[in-house]
């Protein structure tokens, strides 16, 4: 019954203790999986209410650029500060846009979020101060003012990612148990009944939207500091497509699923790209098709852990 906290704790322990023995490339994949998993976790919140955002890359990119701007203009490159800033900027923007988006459902929610993410893309592509299409490099990561040595920096970033991701997952797990969190499937099933119950569907969607954006912002900042470079493609619609793929792969059963799906996606991406660079998208497409048709609950949908 306390399965989720236990599983999350185990994941954290394995990553922190086993981490130093991982090869550098594997640390990179795990860290990126945490970043993408955070975004997918936010998408899962929205998916539970029946909403598909085709523009989550907006917040992913905002988070990344917030982290980048910290280093570029203020000289700050502390991992934790970057991630908090990324999440805060994304949440602030989502709070404002949420007043608009919370009124939308179905295809219009998707298209409006798509338009908003493309607006950011359009702005960044033409902004020379931020490197236009090339983007710019992120300062080397620091932690609490210390600069880890080159052998340790990947591990440090991964450890911070694990701590933050597990913390976020726990928070979301708690949120899913609150009355507001439990409203999501009801909104998906029948919104009018939700209103008759005295609850506000719009308020619930707004809260979920801001939460999802904050998670995506943290994920974006994490990806930025891991990769060491950011560019406007992080806001492009294909990036949003990747996140939707991961969220659907994981399903909406529990908060661990998005991270498992993100890790699986990273592994598939890396191996498939290695084996056959010209057909990996096809394998993704086929997988997505099969998932939607045969496993609409996602790979981990059966495990509706409490």
């Amino acid at each position, binding site marked *: 019954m306390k399965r989720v906290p236990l599983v999350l704790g185990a994941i954290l322990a394995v990553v922190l203790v086993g981490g130093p023995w991982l090869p550098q490339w594997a640390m990179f994949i795990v860290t990126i999986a945490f970043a993408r998993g955070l975004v997918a976790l936010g998408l899962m919140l929205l998916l539970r209410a029946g909403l598909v955002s085709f523009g989550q890359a907006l917040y992913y990119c905002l988070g990344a650029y917030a982290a980048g701007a910290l280093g570029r203009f203020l000289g700050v490159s502390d991992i934790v500060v970057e991630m908090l800033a990324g999440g805060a900027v994304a949440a602030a923007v989502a709070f404002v846009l949420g007043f608009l988006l919370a009124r939308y459902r179905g295809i219009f929610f998707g298209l409006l979020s798509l338009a908003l993410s493309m607006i950011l893309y*359009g702005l960044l592509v*033409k902004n020379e101060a931020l490197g236009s299409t090339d983007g710019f490099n992120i300062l080397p990561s620091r932690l609490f003012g210390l600069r880890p040595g080159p052998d340790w920096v990947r591990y440090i970033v991964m450890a911070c990612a694990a701590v933050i991701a597990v913390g976020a997952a726990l928070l979301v797990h708690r949120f899913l148990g609150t009355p507001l969190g439990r409203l999501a499937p009801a909104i998906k099933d029948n919104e009018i009944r939700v209103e008759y119950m005295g609850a506000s569907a719009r308020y619930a969607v707004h809260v979920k939207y801001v939460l999802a954006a904050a998670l995506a912002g943290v994920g974006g900042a994490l990806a930025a500091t891991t990769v060491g470079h950011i560019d406007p493609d992080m806001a492009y619609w294909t990036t949003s497509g990747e996140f939707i793929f991961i969220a659907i792969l994981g399903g909406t059963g529990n908060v661990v699923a998005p991270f498992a799906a993100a890790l699986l996606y990273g592994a598939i991406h890396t191996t498939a790209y290695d084996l056959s660079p*010209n057909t990996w998208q096809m394998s993704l497409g086929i997988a997505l098709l099969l998932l939607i048709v045969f496993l609409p609950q996602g790979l981990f949908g059966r495990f509706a852990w409490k």
Partner: protein
Amino acid sequence: MQQLLSVAVDGVIYSAWLFIAALGLTLIYGVMKIVNVTHGSFYALGAYAGASFTGVWLARGYPPVLSYAVLFGAAILITLAFAPLIERGILRFMYAKDEVVILLITYALFLILEDVIKLIWGVNPYFIAEPYALLGSFQVAGMAYPTYNLLLVALAVVFGGGLAWFLSGTRIGKLLRAVIHDPEVSRAMGVNVERYYLATFTFGSLLAALAGSYTAPTVSVVPGLGVEIIVLSFAVVVIGGLGSLPGAALGAVLVGLVRSLSVHYLPQVELFVIYFVMAMVLALRPRGLFSLEEPRKI
């Protein structure tokens, strides 16, 4: 004054191109309620087919004037090879699903087709400049424009006018409108709705392929060609109202003019304005500028 004139000419040319690209998307949404991401794939398929067929045609020394017909034929062939297969093989089993889920399915198909294109044509770029250069150029206020662009404008008028006439003036077109309004009642009245869906998807995809094949001479045909056109045509169609034919025309003209204004006066916002207009329309009139009020459904 002179600059305004070239803004207008650029705007009209870009609008025409956008309209051809977006027309099929709005048709397919109007009839089938599918927001079709594979539209971009058919655009790319058309571009590749047009480029390679015309390339062979010219290399064999056949009359270059007929290359415009080859572009047309290439689009038809490539559409017939893929569109019926996709509709009959996959999409028809999905119609009962939610609009957003069908969108995801077409996204999956788009990913698959992206690589199918790479498998067929490889990853090297294709160039066919001859049809573009062949027609020479015309002058407006001292600026030279390739006459080929006039061909695009003519095509846009022919396609748009033709489709409007087909929908309102022919028996099949009227039946199609009946299917749009109520597929179930149409079915009860003996209309073969399935066949109309197949025809609509094929014809809508053909329009995308035609847009691609007639764009091929003006660009280098490279992988990823269809990726950008998807969001652009989404923007056009959403601005006018999903599923509306005059809406698509209005959206195309609006986006075309806004873009050409910004290119001439404020190039930094070129991409931004297009999606800004799209977001504003969605915010103020979510069903588009050309839409009727729709009662809220439970």
